[in-house]
C-alpha cells in the first residue's frame, strides 16, 4: 500500500510540488520568524552578558515606572559609593549613568538614526577594568585616552566611523541641557564589536554626566548633583556573587529604597526584558505565518479532494480487489504525511533564507535589527516539522475519509466527478459557523474580555471557515453572474471558462476561499488605515491650534530635544506661545496610563483644550488636569485628591478638568512641565509646538524658528499640514509593512489557484484534446484557462471584500473610543485590491494555461 502511495507521488511531481509549496511557504515563514528572533535574542543576550560580565553586585533604586516604552528608575545617592568601596572583598565599585545624548558630526549632521530604533546614549566613562564593557582602542593610528576634563569624551567606534570623527577632533553633543561641543579624546569598542546593537555611545567624565543628568531645580526640590543610576561592584576572587550582594546590602541598608542584585540577576533580568520586548515582534510575525498556514489548509484540503475524485476508479479498483476502506484511507493519508514531511523539511531550510529576507524587509521599513550568527534552535525545527506535517495531514483527513467510503462498484462506473449535489445541511453549517464567528468577534471587540484579541482572532477564523463552507452554495450563482460579462465579451472562450468555473462549485469555492482570506485581511487593513488616517486628519484639524510642530526627524520614540529648544523658541519675538510636549507613563486607578505634559499657560494657544473647570493655565506642580471622561469615570472634581504613582506613590490634586474629546497629542491626563521634571529622571521634550504672534507671516516665523533649529540637527520644523502628513506617512509605513506580510497569504492562494487549475486540466485532458482537435487554437485555450482563473479570483475577491468590509467596520466601531472616529472604506483602493487579486489569479494561471495549451492532442484524445 505504501509503495502505491509513493509511486503515486512520483507520478505526479507537479501536483506534489505545488501542494508542498503552499505548506512550505507558511512553514518557512514560521521558521524564519523564530530563527530571526532567536538570532536577535542571542545577539542581545551576549551583549548584556558582556556588559555585566565583571559585575558581581549591583545597587539600584527600587522605585520605577514601567511602561511599553521601557522602565525608568529613580536614581541613587552617589555618597553610597565610597562606603561600598570600603567593603571587605570589593575590588572595584563604580557609579553608572545612562542618558539621552545625540552626537552630531562636524557639519552638524546627527550621527545614527534615533528616530529609527537604535538608541543614542550618553554614559559616564567607567575606567577600563572589570566593570566596563568598553575598551579604549587606537583609531586611525592615534592612541585613545580616557576623558580627563569635563569637555572631553570617548565615543564608540561605529559612530567615529559614521560621523567621520577623529581623536583630537570636536563633536557636538545634544543632551537635555543646551548643546555642547566636546573634544574626542578616545574611541572605544564594546567588547569586540564597534557598537552594541547599532546604538551610539558618547562617554564623559562622571562629573559631566552628573551635571547633565542632575534633576531640575523645582521650587521645592534642591539640585541633586551626586547621583547615579546604579552602582556596579566587582569582587576580589573567591567571593561568590551572593556573598558580595549580602555584604553590599548590609552597608547600603534602606531596603525599601535600594535593591542589591547579583551580577547574574541583572544579566538575567535584562535578557528577559529583551526577550519580552522581542516577543511582541515574534508574536506579530508568527500571526502572519499562521495566517499563511491557515490559507494552506484550504489548498491542501482542496487538492486532496480533487485527487481522490480523480482517483475514484483506481481507488474503487483497489477496493474491488480486496483493499479495506482503512487501507485506502491510509494510502491517501500517507501521501499527505509524505507531502507534509517534505514540505516542512523544505520549509525549515527556506526559513533560514526567509529570516535573512525578513531582516532586510524590516530594515527597508526602518526597523534595523542587530544580528550575529544565525541561530537555528532545535525547538524551531521541531515546531516547523510538527506544525507543517500536522497541517497537511489534518487537512487531508476528510478527503481520505471520503476515499475510504468509495464503493467497489465505482470501478465499473464511467464518470468520476466530485459530488455535485449540495446537501442543505452544509449551507446550515456554514451559516451557523459564520454566526458563531461573528458572535466571538463581537464579544472580543465589544464585550471587553481581558483576552479580546484572542476572541477576535478566533472569531475571524471561524467566520472564514463559515464563509468557506457557504462557498460552494454561492459558487454556482456568483460565478455565473461574474462569468456573464466574460462570456459576453470573450465569446466561446469566455463561455467555456465560465462553465468550467461553475462545473465543480466545491472546487471553485475552496480555491476562491483561500484567496478570500488574503483579500479580506488586506481589505481590512486598507479600511483600517484609511479610517485611522481620516481620524488623525480630523483630530489634527480640530484640536491643533499650534502653527508649527518641531518633531524629531523620522518620528518615532527614540528622539527628543533639550527643553532649551522650547525655551529659545518661546523667547522669539515672532512666537506668541511655545511649549515642549512630553509623553510619559504613570500608574493610576490600578493601571498604567499615558500622560501628557506641556506648559499649561501656552496650552490654550496650542490646542483646543476646552477647560471646563478649574484654572488650567495655573496648574501647579502637585496638580493634575484630567479629561471630563476621567472625571466622570473616577467621580472626580476640581480639588479632589487622586492617588497616582510616578516613581513613588503620592496624591495629586485635580487642578483642572478639560473636554479633550479624542485629540491627537492630548490624552486623558495632563501635568505641567515642572510637575514632570519633578517626577521623571529624564526631561526630554518629544515635540515642541509653537504659535506665531499676531501679524507674523508664516515665512518670517519659519525663518526665525529655523534659526534656532540650526543648533538641533535632529529637529524638523513642520507646519500643520506637514505634521499631519508626517503622521499619515507613519501610518502608511506601518500599513505597507502589513501588506508585505499579507502578500504571503495571497501568494499561497495563488498557488492554490495554480494547483486547482492544473488538476482540473489533467482531469479534462480528453476534453481539451477534443477542443484542440476541432480547431481551438493554443491561444484560445490559454485564454479560457486564464479567464477561469479570473472568475475564481473575482469570486474570492468578492467574498473577501464582503468579509473585509465587515471586519473593518467592526474594528473601527470598536476603536471609536481610542480615537478612530471615522469609518472610511476607500473605494478606489479596494478596487485596486480586487484588481491585484485578479492579477494574482491570472499570474498563477499562466503555468497551468501553458500546460493545457502544450497538451499533445493525440495523447489527449486517446487518453484512458
Amino acid at each position, binding site marked *: 500500500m505504501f509503495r502505491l502511495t509513493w509511486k503515486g507521488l512520483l507520478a505526479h511531481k507537479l501536483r506534489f510540488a505545488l501542494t508542498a509549496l503552499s505548506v512550505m511557504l507558511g512553514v518557512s515563514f514560521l521558521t524564519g520568524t523564530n530563527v530571526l528572533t532567536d538570532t536577535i535574542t542571542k545577539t542581545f543576550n551576549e551583549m548584556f552578558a558582556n556588559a555585566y560580565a565583571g559585575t558581581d553586585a549591583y545597587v539600584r533604586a527600587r522605585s520605577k515606572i514601567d511602561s511599553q516604552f521601557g522602565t525608568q528608575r529613580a536614581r541613587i545617592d552617589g555618597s553610597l559609593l565610597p562606603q561600598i568601596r570600603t567593603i571587605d572583598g570589593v575590588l572595584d565599585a563604580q557609579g553608572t549613568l545612562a542618558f539621552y545624548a545625540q552626537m552630531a558630526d562636524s557639519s552638524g549632521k546627527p550621527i545614527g538614526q534615533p528616530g529609527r530604533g537604535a538608541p543614542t546614549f550618553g554614559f559616564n566613562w567607567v575606567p577600563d577594568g572589570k566593570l566596563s564593557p568598553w575598551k579604549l582602542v587606537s583609531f586611525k593610528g592615534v592612541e585613545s585616552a580616557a576623558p580627563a576634563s569635563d569637555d572631553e569624551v570617548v565615543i564608540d567606534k561605529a559612530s567615529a566611523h559614521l560621523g567621520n570623527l577623529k581623536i583630537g577632533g570636536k563633536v557636538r553633543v545634544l543632551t537635555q541641557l543646551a548643546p555642547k561641543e566636546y573634544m574626542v579624546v578616545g574611541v572605544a569598542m564594546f567588547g569586540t564589536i564597534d557598537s552594541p546593537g547599532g546604538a551610539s555611545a558618547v562617554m564623559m567624565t562622571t562629573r559631566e554626566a552628573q551635571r547633565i543628568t542632575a534633576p531640575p531645580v523645582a521650587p521645592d526640590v534642591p539640585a541633586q548633583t551626586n547621583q547615579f543610576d546604579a552602582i556596579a561592584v566587582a569582587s576580589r576572587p573567591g567571593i561568590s556573587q551572593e556573598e558580595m550582594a549580602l555584604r553590599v546590602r548590609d552597608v547600603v541598608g534602606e531596603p525599601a529604597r535600594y535593591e542589591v542584585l547579583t551580577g547574574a540577576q541583572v544579566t538575567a533580568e535584562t535578557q528577559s526584558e529583551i526577550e519580552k520586548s522581542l516577543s511582541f515582534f515574534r508574536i506579530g510575525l508568527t500571526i502572519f505565518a499562521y495566517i499563511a498556514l491557515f490559507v494552506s489548509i484550504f489548498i491542501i484540503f482542496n487538492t486532496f479532494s480533487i485527487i481522490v475524485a480523480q482517483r475514484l476508479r483506481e481507488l474503487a479498483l483497489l477496493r474491488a480487489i480486496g483493499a479495506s476502506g482503512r487501507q485506502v484511507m491510509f494510502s491517501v493519508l500517507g501521501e499527505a504525511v509524505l507531502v507534509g514531511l517534505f514540505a516542512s523539511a523544505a520549509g525549515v531550510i527556506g526559513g533560514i533564507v526567509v529570516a535573512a529576507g525578513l531582516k532586510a524587509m524590516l530594515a527597508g521599513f526602518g526597523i534595523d535589527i542587530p544580528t550575529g550568527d544565525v541561530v537555528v534552535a532545535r525547538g524551531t525545527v521541531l515546531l516547523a516539522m510538527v506544525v507543517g506535517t500536522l497541517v497537511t495531514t489534518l487537512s487531508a483527513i476528510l478527503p481520505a475519509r471520503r476515499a475510504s467510503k468509495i464503493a467497489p462498484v465505482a470501478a465499473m462506473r464511467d464518470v468520476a466527478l466530485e459530488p455535485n449535489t449540495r446537501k442543505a445541511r452544509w449551507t446550515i453549517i456554514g451559516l451557523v459557523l459564520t454566526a458563531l464567528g461573528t458572535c466571538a468577534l463581537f464579544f472580543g471587540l465589544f464585550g471587553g474580555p481581558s483576552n479580546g484579541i484572542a476572541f477576535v482572532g478566533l472569531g475571524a477564523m471561524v467566520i472564514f471557515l463559515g464563509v468557506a463552507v457557504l462557498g460552494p452554495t454561492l459558487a454556482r450563482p456568483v460565478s455565473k453572474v461574474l462569468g456573464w460579462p466574460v462570456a459576453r465579451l470573450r465569446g466561446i472562450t469566455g463561455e*467555456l471558462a465560465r462553465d468550467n468555473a461553475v462545473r465543480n462549485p466545491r472546487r471553485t469555492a475552496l480555491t476562491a476561499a483561500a484567496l478570500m482570506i488574503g483579500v479580506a485581511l488586506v481589505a481590512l487593513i486598507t479600511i483600517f488605515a484609511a479610517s485611522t488616517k481620516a481620524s488623525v486628519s480630523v483630530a489634527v484639524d480640530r484640536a491643533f491650534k499650534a502653527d508649527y510642530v518641531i518633531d524629531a526627524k523620522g518620528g518615532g520614540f527614540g528622539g527628543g530635544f533639550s527643553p532649551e529648544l522650547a525655551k529659545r523658541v518661546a523667547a522669539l519675538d515672532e512666537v506668541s506661545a511655545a511649549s515642549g510636549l512630553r509623553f510619559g507613563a504613570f500608574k493610576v486607578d490600578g493601571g498604567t496610563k499615558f500622560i501628557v505634559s506641556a506648559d499649561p499657560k501656552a496650552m490654550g494657544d496650542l490646542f483646543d483644550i476646552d477647560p471646563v473647570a478649574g484654572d488650567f493655565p495655573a496648574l501647579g506642580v502637585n496638580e493634575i488636569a484630567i479629561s471630563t471622561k476621567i472625571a466622570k469615570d473616577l467621580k472626580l472634581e476640581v480639588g479632589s485628591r487622586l492617588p497616582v504613582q510616578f516613581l513613588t506613590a503620592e496624591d495629586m490634586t485635580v487642578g483642572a478638568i478639560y473636554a479633550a474629546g479624542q485629540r491627537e497629542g492630548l490624552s486623558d491626563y495632563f501635568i505641567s512641565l515642572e510637575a514632570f521634571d519633578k517626577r521623571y529622571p529624564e526631561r526630554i521634550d518629544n515635540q515642541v509646538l509653537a504659535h506665531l504672534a499676531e501679524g507674523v507671516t508664516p515665512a518670517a516665523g519659519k525663518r526665525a524658528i529655523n534659526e534656532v533649529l540650526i543648533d538641533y540637527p535632529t529637529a524638523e520644523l513642520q507646519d500643520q499640514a506637514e505634521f499631519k502628513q508626517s503622521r499619515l506617512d507613519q501610518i502608511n509605513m506601518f500599513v505597507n509593512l502589513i501588506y508585505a506580510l499579507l502578500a504571503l497569504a495571497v501568494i499561497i492562494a495563488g498557488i492554490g489557484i495554480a494547483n486547482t487549475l492544473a488538476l482540473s486540466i489533467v482531469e479534462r485532458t480528453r476534453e481539451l484534446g477534443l477542443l484542440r482537435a*476541432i*480547431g481551438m*487554437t*493554443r491561444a*484560445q485555450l490559454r485564454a479560457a484557462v486564464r479567464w477561469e482563473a479570473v472568475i475564481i479570483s473575482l469570486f474570492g475577491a468578492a467574498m473577501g471584500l464582503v468579509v473585509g468590509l465587515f471586519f473593518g467596520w467592526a474594528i473601527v466601531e470598536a476603536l471609536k473610543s481610542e480615537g478612530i472616529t471615522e469609518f472610511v472604506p476607500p473605494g478606489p483602493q479596494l478596487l485596486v485590491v480586487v484588481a491585484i487579486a485578479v492579477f494574482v489569479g491570472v499570474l498563477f494561471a499562466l503555468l497551468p494555461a501553458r500546460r493545457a495549451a502544450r497538451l499533445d492532442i*493525440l495523447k489527449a484524445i486517446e487518453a484512458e
Partner: protein
Amino acid sequence: MAIAETISSPLAARAVTASKIYGQDDNEVRALDGISVEFARSRFTAIMGPSGSGKSTLLHCLAGLDRVTAGQVFLGDIEISTCKEKQLTLIRRDRIGFVFQAYNLVPTLTALENMTLPMALAGRKPDKEWFDSVVDMLHMRDRLAHRPSELSGGQQQRVAVARALMSRPEVIFADEPTGNLDSRSSTEILTFMRGAVRSLDQTIVMVTHDPVAASFSDRVVFLADGKIVDEMSDPTSDGVLERLKSLGN
C-alpha cells in the same frame, strides 16, 4: 492557398509515400510504411484492416492531428505535412470535421453549443438554414438544450456528426464512430453519414473494423502493416468480410 484552388482539385485528401515511424532503433514501429492513397471528393471511404495495422495513424496524419515521418499529406492542394501548428489548427477548425469513437463532446456545453463549437471558436455564426437542415436531418431539434450527460450514446454521436457537418468541411474524418454504439444507433448514424455524402456532397473518410459499417461506404481500402493491401468499390458486408478473411484476419 485559395479555397477555389482546393475546391478545384478532384481529390479531397491524399497521402504520397507517407511513412510514420514510432520509436527508435530496436523499438522502431512502422505504423505507416510508404503509403500512397487518394480520397475522392464527395465520396464515403472506409479504411479497414487488422488491429494495429495503422488505420488510426493514417487518419490522424490525414487530418493534421499528427505528422508523418516522411512523405507528403495533402488536403485538397494544401500540403499539410509542412504546415505549422497554428495553420494546422485553423485548417482543422475551418476545413475538417471530426467524429471520434467516444468523448466527442464538451460536457459543459449544450448539444447546440457543441454543434456550433468550431464556428464559435472561429468567431463565426452558423448559417441558419444549413443549421436547421442538419439538425432536422439528425432529428436533434428537441435535444438542442441538453447537455451530453443527458443524451444517449447514439444521440451524442449524432451531435458529433452534426458538429462535423456544421461548418461544411472539405472532409470529415471519423475514427470508429460506431465503435461504442449498439447496432440500431450504428445504423442510424451510418445512414446519416451516407446521406450527407449522397445529398450534400460531403466527403467522409471513416476508419472501422465492422464490415457492416464498411458496407455503407462507396469504397473500402484495406490496410495491413502500414501499407495499402487492397481496395474494393461499392462494398457489401459479406464481401468485406470475405476480403478481411483472405487478408488473414
